[in-house]
Structure formats: C-alpha cells, structure tokens
C-alpha cells in the first residue's frame, strides 16, 4: 500500500510490521512523532505491544535491555541529548549481545542550543559496536527499520536506523508500505524466571577482551550478510565511469545527487557513493572509489569531518567539506559550485560550507 509518510511515520509503520513485544521511549524532538504514532497504535489495539513510559532515555534503553534479555522483540527511539543521556546503556545493550532496534532522528547536540539536523549525535555511536544504518528517504527509513529487526536478530548486535532530523523526520514522501512477514524472535540466549545465572557479572582476566573481540569480529562479518540480504553497505550513483566521486550519507544525498547531475550535464565524469551503513564501515567499496574523492560530512571530529577521517583510514586520500551542522543546510546550487571547485582543483583540503 502506498502512503504519504514522514520518515518518522515510515519508521513507526515498519515497527508495527515487526510487532515488537515491548516499546520504551522518552519524548525528544525530532524523534517524538515515531513513538507518539506507536503509542496511538498500541492504544487503539492496532499493535499488540507493551508500551513502557519511562522517566529518561537511560531508562528507556534499560527497559528494552531487560525485555530483550527475556526474549522480547524490542524497539526504542531517540535523538541528540536523549542519545547522550542513553549513551551508557547503549554500551550495556551491545556488550550483552542483545538484538535491539533503535531509531535515531539525527539532530545537533548543544551547546549552543539547536533542534535541527546534523550527524553529531549519530557519529558519537561509532565506537559502541552497534550496527549503524543511515536512511536517505522515507522509503528507506521504512525498509531499513524492517531489515534492522531481521539483521539484529541474525547477528545478535543492536541496530540503529538513523534518519535526518526534520528534513526527513518531518517531511512527507510517498512510501510503499509493503507487507512483510517477520519470522519469530531469534537470539543467542534468553534468561527466564527460574534460571540461576549471572548476567554480565564481573569479567576480569581475558574474558572482557574476548567478548569485545567477538563483537568487533561479528560486526565486521555482518558486512557480508548486509551485502547479501539487506541492500548493501553503499549505493553507487553514476560511478561506473566516474573520475571524481562524492561520498555522503543520509538525506543530504538527494541534493548531492542533484548537484552531481548538474556537473554531469556539464560533461564532468562524477558520481556519488552514498554510505548506507557507517558500521560496519564499507571499506571495500571505499577502496574502489576513483582517485579524486570529496567527502561531504554533517559531523566533524576536529576541523575535519568524521567520514573524511573514516575514508582516509581506508587509505583513500580525500578532500573534505563539512556542511549542514545544526540544520545549516546547503542548497543544491551551493553544493554544485563547491563540487565545481573540487573538480577544478580549487577546493582546500577541508572547508566548512557556512
């Protein structure tokens, strides 16, 4: 069925399809409409889930960890400061190897205060060990959320699905809400009443390091499964014969593609590699890029953007543009003139599109 949905609503529709046993979340802009929609579905009986209202994001993740430990399919969602508050529990979730799905409506983190989109909250998740997927539009937000449940339960690693705050979370597009039969919950272990076990007891000696190694290895290896069954780690746009490539992730990719189309009309052989996943990082695909690479980032680590550093870590030298921080969104024309300077060799090593 085709519906007009914001990315927030598309995520909620996908979650409904996955029929989670437990949903716990605390409201925060711009994520709130996801769980508002879900709570309406629960209230009306359309969705048979336990909706747990909590006093904080820290507790929201705590609730889904507890429920998942007992074998429940779970969902939560957050943004920005909510993620910051939840951060500790994100480590417990992944270290416990529990299948958990979270949506993140990516948003700036204060100070200074700003509710609009960028990827600074999202990129703070890189070291956790979570699988990190980033949607480009409402359709992909729907598809990725469905896939997140399947993938997470396959590899026993939590999965976050990021959508860009406001430009996606609050913007309606036509979405094909396809019916998907999600198989019964699968996970590596369950703890049920009557079982006398210690969960996450102190792990000295080599135990902690082995657990962390297993997680890192399984995260890397999930790349194969993602390529095979879940739409791949990257999307290649007009890259076949490209001499120049722009690397980007998230909703800005649409505008980047438009700007690249303009350059194509001017005869420049340029394409786009859109990263659908940040973890596992698509190293193989990045190493196949043409020699001239520009990375467009919506989050910085120092003066450089986060993805620029990630791409450089694959041995791929790149120019870097930091754009769209706190919703300071570049126009297609601005992107076009920036890419034109890149192609003409006039772009500095790192530039901020302010």
């Amino acid at each position, binding site marked *: 069925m085709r519906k007009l949905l914001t990315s927030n609503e598309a995520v909620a529709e996908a979650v409904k399809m996955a029929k989670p046993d437990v949903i716990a979340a605390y409201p925060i802009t711009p994520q709130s409409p996801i769980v508002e929609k879900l709570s309406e579905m629960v209230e009306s009986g359309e969705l048979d889930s336990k909706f747990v209202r909590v006093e904080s994001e820290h507790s929201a993740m705590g609730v889904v960890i507890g429920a998942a430990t007992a074998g429940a399919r779970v969902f939560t969602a957050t943004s920005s400061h909510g993620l910051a508050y939840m951060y500790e529990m994100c480590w417990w979730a992944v270290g416990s190897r529990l299948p958990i799905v979270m949506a993140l409506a990516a948003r700036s983190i204060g100070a200074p205060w700003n509710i609009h989109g960028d990827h600074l909250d999202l990129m703070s998740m890189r070291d956790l060990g979570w699988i990190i997927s980033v949607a480009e539009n409402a359709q992909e937000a729907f598809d990725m959320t469905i896939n997140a449940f399947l993938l997470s339960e396959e590899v026993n690693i939590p999965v976050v699905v990021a959508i860009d705050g406001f430009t996606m979370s609050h913007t309606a597009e036509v979405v094909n809400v396809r019916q998907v039969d999600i198989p019964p919950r699968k996970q590596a272990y369950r703890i049920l009443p009557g079982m006398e076990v210690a969960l*996450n007891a102190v792990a000295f000696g080599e135990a902690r390091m082995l657990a962390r190694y297993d997680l890192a290895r399984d995260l890397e290896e999930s790349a194969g499964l993602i390529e095979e069954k879940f739409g791949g780690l990257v999307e290649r746009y007009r890259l076949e014969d490209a001499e120049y490539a722009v690397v980007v992730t998230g909703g800005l990719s649409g505008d980047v593609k438009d700007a690249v189309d303009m350059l194509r009309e001017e005869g420049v052989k340029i394409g786009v590699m859109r990263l659908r996943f940040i973890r596992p990082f698509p190293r193989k695909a990045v190493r196949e890029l043409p020699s001239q690479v520009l990375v467009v980032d919506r989050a910085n680590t120092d003066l450089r953007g986060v993805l620029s550093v990630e791409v450089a870590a694959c041995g791929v030298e790149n120019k870097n543009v930091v754009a769209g921080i706190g919703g300071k969104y570049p126009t297609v024309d601005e992107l076009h003139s920036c890419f034109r300077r890149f192609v003409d060799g006039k772009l500095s090593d790192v530039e901020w599109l302010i």
Partner: protein
Amino acid sequence: MRLDPIISKATAGSAGETGSWRNFRPVVNSEKCSGCKECFYYCPEGVIEVKGVARIDYRFCKGCGVCREVCMQKAIVMVPEE
C-alpha cells in the same frame, strides 16, 4: 560468539576472592558481641553471618570497616593486615 563472559553460572570466588583487597581486617570480640545483627544488615558485601555472634568470611571481606562503625557494642576492631 562466546557467551561465557556474558552469562555465567556463578560460584563462590569465580570472579576472584576479594578478601585479597583488604588492608585492614575486622576482628570480632565474641565476648562483647551481642549478636544483634547490625553489622550483618550494614555489611555492603554480605560476608557476615550471625549465629549467636558475628562471623566474617575473610575470603570476601574487603575490609571497609562499616561493621566496626555500626557496631553498638564496639565489639569489632580493625587490625592492619601484614
């Protein structure tokens, strides 16, 4: 994927015997001890058993001294470990 570091069947001392952390050893004077269980209730490690008088499990007692502080009979003294 190894599950042992995540879920385990706990046994006494499987994560190490924390008594080795102790700098001061609480010693109960059984003549003064009234068996009131105040130390039992306060012990953060749950290593005190009271059957008539308090007995401390030195394999796990970390020597924090809370028992000495709460003892109403002043029956516990902290002795430096060798």
